[in-house]
């Protein structure tokens, strides 16, 4: 069964503002696809269209080639966490899962199984109104995983979680992808996806900014730069810039060089007799890469603002 998420030419307007503006991307099985962008970038709206809650004005939002509204047993095909706070406060957590289980003819046993999995066995018999934000997130994850679906959509799953909860979600995302499932997870913070995403779809103001693998993105941000660790910084700068390298000091004993391959850096330092303890390919962090991308997005944003677009309200 095909479990690819396909968004093509998706467009959605709310009144005056374009929430999603011709967005296209694909999320494949066996990968965690991060869906990143600032607040109001159209991530939640896109997720709602994927789930058939909102209808697109234009374009397609398909899961396994099918529109969500055509799914007969959606909980077995797609698990979704949209808004963890969207639980009736007077209903017990376990009962919330129970009605969902009944909607697909699942046995009560499955509800208790999933409660244990998300660590809510004890709290299941308490009313959801008394849950902490973290407990609500766990209940939302339980809803998504109830039918053991091969496709998972999580909208800001780590919002408001404590470090232990964040670690738990990351482990879960990795495990789900390793199990061959398609995992699409949105976040407004790139750092939240560090170590968990394989692929990144970056959006801004409803438009696609970048659709690439994490590895390719990091490589681009690293841009062939070489990191040098040396106690003789001044001599090293002189030697390397003399050979045409562009050198930047990044610490009291650290430099980054661009324009020279690492072999050439080693040869230069050796021939000039400059002591060094390390020469390595510079590894950009995801955050650096994101900053680079959003710097472009800022420019785009300024252009868009000149073009008369109003900011899109009310989305987190």
């Amino acid at each position: 069964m095909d479990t690819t998420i396909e968004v093509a030419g998706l467009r959605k307007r709310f009144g005056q503002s374009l929430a999603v503006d011709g967005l296209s991307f694909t999320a494949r099985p066996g990968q965690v696809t991060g869906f990143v962008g600032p607040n109001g970038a159209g991530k939640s709206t896109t997720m709602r269209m994927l789930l058939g809650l909102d209808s697109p004005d234009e374009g397609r939002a398909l899961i396994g080639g099918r529109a969500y509204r055509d799914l007969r047993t959606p909980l077995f095909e797609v698990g979704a966490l949209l808004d963890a706070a969207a639980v009736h406060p007077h209903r017990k957590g376990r009962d919330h899962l129970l009605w969902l289980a009944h909607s697909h003819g699942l046995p009560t046993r499955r509800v208790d199984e999933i409660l244990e999995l998300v660590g809510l066995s004890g709290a299941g018999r308490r009313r959801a109104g008394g849950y902490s934000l973290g407990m609500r997130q766990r209940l939302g994850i339980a809803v998504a995983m109830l039918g053991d679906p091969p496709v998972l959509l999580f909208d800001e799953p780590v919002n408001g979680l404590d470090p232990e909860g964040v670690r738990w979600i990351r482990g879960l995302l990795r495990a789900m992808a390793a199990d061959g499932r398609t995992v699409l997870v949105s976040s407004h913070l790139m750092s939240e996806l560090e170590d968990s995403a394989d692929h990144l779809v970056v959006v801004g103001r409803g438009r696609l900014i970048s659709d690439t693998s994490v590895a390719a993105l990091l490589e681009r941000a690293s841009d062939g730069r070489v990191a040098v660790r040396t106690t003789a910084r001044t001599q090293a700068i002189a030697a390397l810039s003399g050979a045409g390298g562009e050198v930047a000091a990044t610490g009291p004993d650290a430099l980054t060089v661009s324009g020279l391959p690492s072999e050439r850096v080693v040869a230069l330092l050796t021939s000039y007799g400059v002591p060094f303890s390390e020469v390595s390919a510079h590894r950009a962090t995801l955050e650096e890469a994101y900053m680079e991308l959003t710097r472009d997005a800022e420019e785009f944003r300024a252009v868009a603002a000149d073009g008369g677009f109003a900011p899109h309200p009310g989305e987190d």
Partner: protein
Amino acid sequence: MAATDARTLRALGGPAARDRARSAAEAGRPARERLPYMVHAEWTKLRTLPTTWLILAAAVLLTTAIGAAATSGLDPGHCRGTEPCAEDIVKQSLTGVLVGQVVVAILAIHAVCGEYATGTIRTTLTAMPDRVRVLVAKAVVVGGLTAAAGAAGVGAALGTARFVLLSQGFDHAHGYAALTLADGATARAAVGSVLNLVLVGWLTLGLAWLVRDSAGAIGSVLGLLYLSPVLASLANDPTWQHRLRKYGPGPAGLSVQNTLRLDRLDIGPWPGLGVLAAYTGAALLVGGLALCRRDA
């Protein structure tokens, strides 16, 4: 993290469990068999909210108590009606339905607007994307609960009133028979009252899907049910008084409670219920269209 992975996969049971879960619920089950699951889900949803039971208890108690109060003020010697002097004791006993239908409307609003207020509607439509079936499933559950509470309330009201009326002197000596469902007209008034409650529940469901918000929904249903009798009492023109009582959903629906002087009614018992049913059908149609067309 390795421990989390292992635990996660063990709990999920891996692909085998997934296939089991899916084959259990999906394999060989045609789409049309999904509706019973959805009704089950809607039933679980309503029964797990304590408010549901409070509303149902209020519907039964108010229908009974108001019937008892209405009959306790009657006196077989001082007829309020015109000649031939006779009280419609069945209709008086069922006065509580007038208030019971407001409580039933609150139940319907609780079932629909509560979902919009808490955001549960998105979970509902994600689990059950066929919106027409969601509407049907909710109507089945709300209708069933209303019928049960209505039958209990109407039964209790007649039982209490029978006792009250006998102690007030409404006996053979004054030309009255004790209330009994064995009497055809009484049975029709009782069954009709329950149907009236179910129709009001569905009418409110339709409006609730349309309006989404509790205050707006209760306002529109109260306006729809009680505005026409108020306007009728204000109208000077007898033709308009008659029309408002004949075609207003509130008074038309309750016409089914009459057991005396049927020829003088603005609209007959069953045609009256038919008028209410027409309003209900229209409300469900409009509410259903709104549900299907709008973003959730």
